């Protein structure tokens, strides 16, 4: 290894590819250097015949953005598969009686049969909407999330939505998120944002709008994250009028144009609507990060600075209130985690947002990457990273496996599809999409759980047992 060991390692890993592929992939992988800025290539389509961690537009629109909005029915329009696949996979928690106040845990599909493919699904769609409205009278609206075949057979879901909205007297939102659109779930986020913009936003006026009203955007309440974030904001004196979209409501979305500030956590999936609200309604938006006490403190101050002294004072009070608890967590776990090296490969905001939390625990992120990021995500990521960190976009199984096997991190954070691969290879692993059935990780409530989970993964006694004693002996001989 030379002076830039990681750079040469990357070269080595890529050297197995044919020249054309090597050149292509080299643009997706960067080793951060002193003062370097983002030069990564991102948001490029996948190669047919290979495995990918990416999802599709439907996954981004229905699975990520619309699904957690609890008082609507999100109809998976088309054959059964997509709806089934996206059912309950993301642990978006909601409050309220299922089937009355919350439809998020349920799955609704128009369940196309062959004849629907042949003769078209518009008539069926009408019937389905009518039935669902009758069966669930408390429903506050529908989204129609179209699946691949719908886009091919020439159905006009927009017209059906328009017609049925009149008949059923609730918002009905057509979402053209067929899976073949775009090259990952990312376009699905955009499509979902546009559908919110066109069919919900600004459709309702509140009569109790106030100076501290905000929206919490891009928090899907995985494992209760949004509740943990909301708690901080409310303790600061702010009024969270809606969460986009974890445990959120239609009403909140429709009146969202009246808030004073949009706070965005997951930039990737929700920046579109923030920009729109800024342009159209003049609502400023602010990115923040509620992972780990350092970032939380920074974020509280940044947010408070947008408001008056009352909020600023309260913000400081919140910081002071949780300081001892955070200190205790760090005192307990930092000695066990100090110097541990982490590699991440996830979607959304986590490849950069969680870095501060790891650093609070004395850990170092030595590699990170996104499944479906855009260049602006990497622009936001580079400043967060230390030199020599490897940053990879849409990594192949080969690349990820090689990096991990060569760099031997103490912890890998990725998705369930990777979980069993790397765990079997002996790497401590955490699912960083769904928090591995744990959570929340956001806010002051989340950090103790985050710390405990990382400790458990890294320091589990199980790790030391993997090798059979007869193998150990052989090595000694």
């Amino acid at each position, binding site marked *: 290894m030379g002076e830039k060991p990681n750079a040469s390692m990357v070269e080595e890993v890529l050297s197995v590819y044919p020249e054309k592929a090597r050149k292509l992939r080299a643009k997706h992988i960067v080793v951060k250097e002193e003062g370097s800025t983002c030069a990564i290539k991102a948001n490029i*389509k*996948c190669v*047919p*015949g*290979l*495995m*990918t961690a*990416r*999802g*599709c*537009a439907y*996954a981004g629109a229905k699975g990520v953005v619309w699904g957690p909005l609890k008082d609507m029915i999100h109809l998976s329009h088309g*054959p*059964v*598969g*997509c*709806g*089934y*696949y996206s059912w*309950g*996979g993301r642990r978006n928690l909601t409050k309220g009686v*299922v*089937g009355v106040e919350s439809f998020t*845990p*349920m*799955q609704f*599909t*128009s*369940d*196309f*049969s*062959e004849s629907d*493919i042949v003769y078209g699904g518009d008539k069926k769609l009408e*019937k*389905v909407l009518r*039935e*669902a409205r*009758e*069966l*669930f009278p*408390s429903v506050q609206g529908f989204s129609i999330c179209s*699946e*691949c*075949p719908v*886009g*091919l057979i020439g159905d006009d879901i927009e017209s059906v939505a328009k017609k049925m909205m009149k008949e059923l007297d609730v918002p009905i939102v057509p979402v053209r998120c*067929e*899976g*073949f*659109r*775009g*090259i*990952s779930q990312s376009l699905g986020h955009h499509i979902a944002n546009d559908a919110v913009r066109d069919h919900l936003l600004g459709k309702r006026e509140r009569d109790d709008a106030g100076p501290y009203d905000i929206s919490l955007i891009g928090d899907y309440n995985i494992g209760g994250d949004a509740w943990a974030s909301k708690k901080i904001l409310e303790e600061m004196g702010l009024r969270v009028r809606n969460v986009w979209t974890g445990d959120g409501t239609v009403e909140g979305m429709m009146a969202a144009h009246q808030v004073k500030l949009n706070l965005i956590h997951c930039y990737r999936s929700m920046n579109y609507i923030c920009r729109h609200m800024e342009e159209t309604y003049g609502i400023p938006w602010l990115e923040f990060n509620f992972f780990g006490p350092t970032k939380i403190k920074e974020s509280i101050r940044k947010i408070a600075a947008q408001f008056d002294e009352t909020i600023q004072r309260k913000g400081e009070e919140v910081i002071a209130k949780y300081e001892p608890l955070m200190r205790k967590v760090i005192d307990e776990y930092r000695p066990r985690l100090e110097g541990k090296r982490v590699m991440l490969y996830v979607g959304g905001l986590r490849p950069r947002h969680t870095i501060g939390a790891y650093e609070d625990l004395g850990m170092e992120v030595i590699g990170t990457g996104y499944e479906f990021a855009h260049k602006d995500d990497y622009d936001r990521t580079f400043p967060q990273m230390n030199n020599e960190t490897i940053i990879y976009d849409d990594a192949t*199984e080969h690349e990820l496996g090689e990096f991990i096997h060569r760099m031997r991190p103490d912890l890998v954070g990725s998705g369930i*599809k990777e*979980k*069993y*691969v*790397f765990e*079997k290879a002996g790497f401590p692993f955490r699912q960083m999409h769904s928090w591995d059935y744990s959570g929340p990780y956001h806010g002051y409530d989340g950090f103790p759980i985050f710390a405990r989970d990382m400790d458990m993964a890294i320091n589990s006694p199980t790790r030391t047992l993997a090798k059979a004693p007869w193998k150990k002996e052989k090595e000694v001989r």
Partner: protein
Amino acid sequence: MKNSVSLAERHYTGNPQKNSPALGATMAYMGVDGLLALLHGSQGCSTFIRLQLSRHFKEPIPLNSTALLEETAIFGGWEHLKKGIAKAADKFKPRIIGVMSSGLTETFGDDMNSAWASLLQERPDLAATPVVLAQTPDYIGSLQEGYLRAVLALLETLASEPAPREAKTVALFPGAHFSPADVEELKEILDLFGFEPLSLPDISTSLDGHDELEPAPVVQGGISLSDIRRLPGCKAAFSFGPSMTGVGAALEKRHGVAHHQVDSLTGLEAVDAFILKLAELSEKPIPEKLLRQRSRLLDTMADYHDQLGTKRVVLALEADLLVALTGSLTEVGAIVQGALTASPLGLQAMPPGIPVAVGDLEHLEDIAAGSHLVIGNSNARQVAGPKKIPHLRAGLPVFDRVGIPQKVWVGYRGTQQFLIDVLNTMAK
């Protein structure tokens, strides 16, 4: 709360029981060693299927994708499929490529056979890699259908040539409801009679949850290609589950292998019949170990018939498992109050007089009232939970209990375990 739209009138599906055929096909492919599974569709499909099956089996699921995009939706995916097969073959040198189609590609009518033929003309060097093509649009049937189509395609593509007749080999075609541990148990039973079992597919060595796998884009474990090629020479063949009967029948028709249909391998009578058949075929006495297992099962049935008898059970399962568990419950005097399934495939084997509906879990809600037990996958908790009915997890997906791939439901031991599970679930 729900108002009433009757099942017969309903057009929508709420909390579906039906799952995707492509997912079923993936399960079948996962039981073939060295196979590269390739989903012809949008990349989301493959990612979703990997996620769903990983959540159930707690294993990595190597499934590749032809990654169709918007432009393909206009021009069709034919070329993409060719590219995908070629890419996969070149890059990973798999022993076999197993392709399944999707709702997308079937909607625009991709002819997979002609794509493969065309690719072969361009790339004759690929002829050494067998390509199995299964049509699995998710608007036709459910998980079982996709599994069946993949197994049939494997058999027809890979075992088309005659093979030398062997006295000791027996072909096994387990249904989609067989857990990895079920396949292992079945193979052990055959072993006890001195047979060499060849199971297509064989997930007992690929999805059994063992350590020390390296990540790979192809299936590791499962039946080998050379063993699949021996299937036409088997002494006999057994298909397990009513949906699977066509597989053994195809082998019989093409290669004259005597085929025996086994609708169920759960329940004393069902297992007895199978064991008796094996004793006849092997011309051997029934092994002591099996007699002891039978005696233990019988003891459990005798000890607990009074706690099982008259218990009202509702089941939401695909037909193969539904038939198996219904038979076992019925013979201990439990009452199958109602059953719900995903599609009609295999329902012909249901005992008469048991109300079965093809529908969704909202329908299960209607039929579950007053029952002592719900048997269904994890999603059925949305019915069992609010109604406070004990819920035994069975079928797929099960993501809120562990040890699912390790569970045995077949044979005397599996039946005994099933009855014990039923009792303990009701005891809580």
